[in-house]
């Protein structure tokens, strides 16, 4: 049915270990080559971990699926070396309009703070994202992406897992120190480890359609409550690349998914929405039912779960794939330190703690949006309609309208890896928060702060003369990045965003989150904070 995109078919290549009947122990095996599995492959490989990524299929995502990518995931993809073509290909947007019945109730602007390298949000079909990531993986010598490899059994041992893999050539066995399960909402890996979800499944269904049309709708997010062309339900319209538009129709619980997917059902719905004179072609249709739930623990023995395999989040707010990238961002450096025996395995428990904290924040937000968009009782529907009706004329009521709260990173404010502040700071950069980007000048050329942070720990200091250029603490080390020496804060935005005074010093984790900050450069304190961020017990205490 697709007219604007031809699916690549990636070749199945039998592995030497299968051909020769050898059982090899791999440091990390990633299950699933969707966006999250691919980002795991890229992240781990770039950190120096030899990684095998297995996928039971041999192509990219069918249909546009995730569509919206927010600033923080784009920053992560930029660290992984593949954001630029995605931003160039994707559609940037910042205006959202909310319609109630046949009227525009109000519009909002994401009002992204200017002077960040990445935009607030882009829309892009998931297949383009995956294609770019697969190409990037092909450039990593540490990454081995294997198509048509299906995990069919998993057995856990104290220090590794045994995987039985099915390929077109039959079965073979692999061993892995760690398995990272990125095999989606219906994760087989989750089932094999006996992990189950806690949370709720919503009694609602949505029809999602990719439509090709030359329409003069602006590049905005349009959301309708109870539109005349689809009474009593909600509809969302989003622009993607190649004049492909994504339309989501709420169907209600009683809809028959197989019936609703038929073109003879879908086309009249779209025709009613666009009017009789807009030519369009249908590219892809799917019906889904969504959930807000997560695993009780994202770690089961030697298996770590990420993305939809670990948590399912209702689509309002584009929090699904976006939070999955942040799972991997959190996991990669920890896995590397544990594999190198620099940090204890307890560091991986902080993956569970930090990303469950983030998952719960996402679940809270998307459950609230869902309760607003699909009220569960007569009275909650009346309250919802009251808010919508008032919002048209009473500006102060508009913040109550909830058509999805768009994905934002969750700061790990209570993380055990943080070293608490001992001095007052202004602004947003509290320990546990992802670092804000800012424009800088490097050797006379314009650049970006986040691009300077690198793969390891970084000390960012406003000290005029820090005592060292690199801070070594046993097996741990941090590069010292000095404002005014390594780069120029030409526009003063680094100082403004980090409340930088002379002497102000930040310890930044390998995932670009603040671990600690002080008002002066103190190597002993930095070292202690770095050990704490790696879950290494303080000296003299075991």
């Amino acid at each position, binding site marked *: 049915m697709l007219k604007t995109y031809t699916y690549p078919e990636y070749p199945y290549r039998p592995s030497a270990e299968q051909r020769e009947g050898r059982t090899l122990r791999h440091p990390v095996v990633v299950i699933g080559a969707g966006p999250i599995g691919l980002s795991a492959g890229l992240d781990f490989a770039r950190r120096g971990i030899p990684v095998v990524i297995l996928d039971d299929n041999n192509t990219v995502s069918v249909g546009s699926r995730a569509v919206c990518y927010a600033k923080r995931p784009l920053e992560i993809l930029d660290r992984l070396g593949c954001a630029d073509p995605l931003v160039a290909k994707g559609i940037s947007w910042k205006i959202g309009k909310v319609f109630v019945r046949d009227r525009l109730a109000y519009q909002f602007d994401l009002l992204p703070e200017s002077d960040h390298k990445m935009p607030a949000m882009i829309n892009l079909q998931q297949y383009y994202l995956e294609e770019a990531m697969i190409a990037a993986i092909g450039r990593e010598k540490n990454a081995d992406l294997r198509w048509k490899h299906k995990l069919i059994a998993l057995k856990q041992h104290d220090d590794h897992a045994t995987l039985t893999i099915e390929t077109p050539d039959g079965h073979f066995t692999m061993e892995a120190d760690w398995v990272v399960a990125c095999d989606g909402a219906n994760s087989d890996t989750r089932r094999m480890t006996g992990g189950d979800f806690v949370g709720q499944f919503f009694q609602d269904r949505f029809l999602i359609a990719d439509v090709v049309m030359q329409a003069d709708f602006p590049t905005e997010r349009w959301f309708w409550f109870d539109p005349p062309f689809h009474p009593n339900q909600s509809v969302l319209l989003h622009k993607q690349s190649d004049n492909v538009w994504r339309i989501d129709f709420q169907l209600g619980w009683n809809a028959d998914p197989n019936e609703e997917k038929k073109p003879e059902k879908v086309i009249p719905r779209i025709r009613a929405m666009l009017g009789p004179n807009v030519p369009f072609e249908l590219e892809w249709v799917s019906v889904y039912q969504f959930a807000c739930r997560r695993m009780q623990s994202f770690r089961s023995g030697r298996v770590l779960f990420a993305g939809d395999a670990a948590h399912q989040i209702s689509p309002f707010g584009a929090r699904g794939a976006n939070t999955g990238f942040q799972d991997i961002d959190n996991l990669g450096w920890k896995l590397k330190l544990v594999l190198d025996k620099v940090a204890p395995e307890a560091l991986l428990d902080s993956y569970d703690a930090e990303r469950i904290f983030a998952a719960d924040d996402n679940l809270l937000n998307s459950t609230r949006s869902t309760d607003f968009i699909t009220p569960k009782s007569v*009275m909650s529907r*009346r*309250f919802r*309609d*009251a*808010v919508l*009706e*008032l919002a048209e004329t*009473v500006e*102060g*009521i508009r913040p*109550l309208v909830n058509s999805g709260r768009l994905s934002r990173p969750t700061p790990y404010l209570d993380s055990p890896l943080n070293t608490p502040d001992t001095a007052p700071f202004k602004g947003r950069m509290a320990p546990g928060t992802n670092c804000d980007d800012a424009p800088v000048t490097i050797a006379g050329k314009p650049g970006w702060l986040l691009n300077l942070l690198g793969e390891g720990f970084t000390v960012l200091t406003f000290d005029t003369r820090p005592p060292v250029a690199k801070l070594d603490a046993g097996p741990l080390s941090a590069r010292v990045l000095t404002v005014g020496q390594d780069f120029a804060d030409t526009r003063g935005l680094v100082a403004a965003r980090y409340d930088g005074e002379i002497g102000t010093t930040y310890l930044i984790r390998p995932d670009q989150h603040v671990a600690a900050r002080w008002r002066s450069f103190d190597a002993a304190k930095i070292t202690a904070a770095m050990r704490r961020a790696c879950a290494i017990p303080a000296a003299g205490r075991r």
Partner: protein
Amino acid sequence: MKLTTRANINDPDGFYQELIEAQRDLGDEEAARMTCKLVILLANHIGDRAVLSEALRLAAPKSAAIPPKA
């Protein structure tokens, strides 16, 4: 307790009459919808989350007491 629970309306009978009058000619559904709008408008006016939570607890039926916020 931040919620004002002492008498605070300087014309209680007048207010009550106005409230009832406002809905006298409305059907049940219309009246319910109007009440919802009223709740939303007044909640926005109050704004203070602690006061709103106290009011929600005080208004809840005894059998369905809303636990205090942690």
